[in-house]
């Protein structure tokens, strides 16, 4: 999807046909640290909601616990700020019972890839129509600088003061390894145009769209992406008509890889290599079965149920 029409939407104003603008989705004032990557994600999400004109009361943001999980409080939609690691089961319950709602899930790296890892894997397999954002700053922020699964090896933290012991977990390869996973993308908070375009592609995908958003923590890991931010040559964009194309970024990011998101083997190779940071849609298959469709049941009225309950009693009658 190209950027041209979306540029217009940046200047979007509420009107008769488009009752919502970005301010329509503003909740409480965000209390993240100045310079936190979460702010940029929040703005991109509000822009997405406005561009897609999502009805606020038909939209639910579900989060777990952590800095990024304060997200729903800063939006004027329905929100569910639950417990650590368990956002995805809650989202699953909401979507199963109310498939007409737009359900977004916002998790941090500890939330998603550590304490909630089981739910992450199984949510990808259920493939409900959920937009899932992993706000990955590679550190525990709220609890003050502990190693997370995505913390690079060697990074000094309060729990691993001689440098983090293990190689970082790669959320992309994990996601791409899960059977029935249908959308896996990576973007970065410091490239807002790409962030927005990726979120939009994710939202428009029918199925669980998993977006890892690389982001900076200015307090605990300010150095983490500094070199990449300064040097766009360290970034490669994955481009494809079925993925994300942002022409305005062509001059900044000259390394571009034409990658068909249907090609799972290529996606896994791209996700595996760590020479460059790759942004774009790694994999997308809109034809994978979605759990809410597989499990769709015909609603029954109370009266119908009463009749069928009598039939049930007949089966057990003496």
């Amino acid at each position, binding site marked *: 999807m190209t950027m041209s029409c979306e540029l217009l939407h940046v200047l979007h104003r509420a009107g008769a046909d488009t009752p919502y603008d970005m301010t329509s989705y503003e*909740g*409480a004032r965000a209390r993240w640290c100045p310079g936190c990557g979460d702010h940029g994600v929040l703005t991109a999400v509000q822009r997405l909601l406005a561009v897609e004109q999502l009805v*606020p*009361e*038909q939209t*639910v*943001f*579900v989060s777990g616990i952590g800095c990024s999980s304060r997200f*729903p*409080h800063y*939006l*004027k*939609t*329905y*929100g*569910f*700020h*639950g*417990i650590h690691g*368990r956002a*995805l*089961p*809650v*989202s*699953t*319950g*909401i*979507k*199963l*019972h*109310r498939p*007409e*709602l737009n359900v977004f899930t916002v998790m941090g790296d500890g939330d998603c890839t550590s304490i909630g890892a*089981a*739910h992450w*894997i*199984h949510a990808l397999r259920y493939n409900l129509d959920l937009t899932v954002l992993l706000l990955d700053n590679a550190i525990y922020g709220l609890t003050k600088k502990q190693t997370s699964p995505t913390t690079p090896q060697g990074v000094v933290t309060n729990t691993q003061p001689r440098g983090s012991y293990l190689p970082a977990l790669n959320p992309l390869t994990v996601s791409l390894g899960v059977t029935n996973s249908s959308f896996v993308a990576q973007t970065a908070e410091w490239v807002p145009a790409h962030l927005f375009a990726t979120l939009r592609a994710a939202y428009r995908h029918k199925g669980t769209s998993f977006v890892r958003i690389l982001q900076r923590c200015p307090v605990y890991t300010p150095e983490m992406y500094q070199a990449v931010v300064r040097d766009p040559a360290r970034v490669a964009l994955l481009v494809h008509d079925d993925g994300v194309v942002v022409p305005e970024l062509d001059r900044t990011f000259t390394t571009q890889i034409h990658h068909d998101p249907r090609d799972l083997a290529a996606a896994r190779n791209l996700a595996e290599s760590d020479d460059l940071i790759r942004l774009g849609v790694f994999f997308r298959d809109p034809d994978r079965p979605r759990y809410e469709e597989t*499990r769709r*049941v*015909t*609603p*029954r009225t*109370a*009266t*119908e*149920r*009463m009749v*069928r*309950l*009598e039939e*049930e*009693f007949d*089966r*057990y*009658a*003496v």
Partner: protein
Amino acid sequence: MTASPASLKDNHSLRAPTPPSIKLHEHTIEIVSDSGEGAQKCGQIFAAVSARMGNGVWTVEIIPAEVQPPPRVPEGASGNRIRIGDGPVTNWGDQTNLVVAFNEQVLLARHRLGALAPDATLLIEEMWETSPDPAIVAAWQEAMTELTAAGYRIVRVPMQAECLTVMENPRKGKNMFALGILAWIYDRDLERIREQIAIAFRKKSEAVYTTSVALVDLGYQWASEHLDFRIEVPRAPGDAALVVMNGNEALGMGAIAAGFELCAMYPITPATSVSHYLSEVFERFGGLVHQAEDEIAAIGVAIGASYAGKVALTITSGPGLALKTEFLGLAIMTETPLVLVDVQRGGPSTGLPTKVEQSDLLAALFGQPGDAPHVIIAPATIEECFHVMVTARRIAETFRAVVMVLTDANLATGVTPFPRPTPDIRWQAAPIDLAPVGADDLPYAWDESTGLSPRIVPGQPGGMFTLTGLSHDGRSKVAYSAGIHQHTSAMRSRKIAVLQSVLSPPQVYGPAEGDLLVIGWGSTKGAIEEAVDRVRAEGLAVSSLHLRFLSPLEPGIKAICSRFRNVMAVEINYSDEPDAPFITEENRRRGQLALLLRSATLVDVDSWTRVPGEPLRPGAIAAALRERLGRGAAT
């Protein structure tokens, strides 16, 4: 084999006259085999037919923990225990009077457990005596020596040899042969047995049905030719329409009657069969069983669904309850209605997965860190397992509360008939209201006096708010101030008192005053009341009280207790014996209800509990009551 009903009739006319039946008020029968030999199927059909014919029936499963334990080992005993009576049967009774066993090792297991009455009749497969394996022959001889010495009446049955006349693999057919024997002894209606076989094997082929019927006829014929006794437990077919099922099926049906639309669960014994039942039928009612990736996800999905609309259900057992703890706190803190069923088993840890215990009460009530007031209901009968679901859903919705329903393996696997419920459309959950929310309407508009507040669900225009497990004010805004947390804690707690204020005081079983009041909860009601009847018939002034609500406790308990000289809680959980080493009045760990009652009433509630991994026997309770009163009289 051509044992059609007609040929059977001819055969009857040829053989010796039928021996006269011994007439009894009740009889308890067991069918035991190795796992996989179908003894349970035999027992279930026998029980269902007995219920249909007008006997009171209570069935308990005998289940090994493994799916397929090695054959011919005592711990592999699998089967059913059926108590039939001339009136309602409310519990599994004391000891077994007649056993059909497919090998001597499983029989030995029952004997050594003390499950068999001293004068019990044992019908035993005799093929092992002539086994080519000398080890088996030796084991047989050793077991038979022990069983004979115990004084049982032993009847040897050539099950294998007889079944071979009908089928090639009798291991899968002895159960129906045994059913035929029981049908003759207890004069069961063969036509009803055929109906039940058709139901039990509805997913199997026609050939399975035909063979099964032939085997039943064969067993019936064998019994008529070789047995010299029959037993009559008078039947009292009533006018009332009855249904017969186990407690887990009743829970599942109750969930349907209550209008639940989502049951999220993770497999765990002995709760899982609720979801087996629901998985089979729920979709016909517009409902969904979601098998989650783990216990935590199961409750998370249920909470998500409840938050988004109708109250959802999650079903588990002790270890699963432990895993769900954090989410329970979230549901309570956010006042998201939820119904959780805990089908209790023996604990702690993995404990006794298939066996009954009532040890989750305090964990259910106090297991959530922080102050987490919620409702706990314990159905006392299989019938109540049905109705409790309607009550639980209504309370959850009305009070924005977590409601836990505590049943146990005794109710879960026990089968008994009860009056067919008359469904009421008002039991069903109302459709969710998506009307716009007024500008002044808050997500927590607590009524200052009751703590109650209406709920706002996603989809309601103008109602957007973020639910949070953090301390929050009426607008659901995060609020850490001391005053707000004090106030909102009071609001969440107040609801429980309000619920208590609308409950009726529990009814005393027996006179309202006396020497001893026995208090129980859950599945022990039938056994306790039978024990009370027995000791009262002996002249002891004992009554009992059975509680359905454990949180809040039903009103008036202290006043009821005050009219008895002694009060004792009887439960299936652990308590220290008062005269055990090191045990003092101060350090004695009492049963869980006893602890609860003592704290709520300041009554000196004594405790008598057992954790045998099986339901309490009325005889054992009666003995404890006599002993307690003996002690009580001395003081």
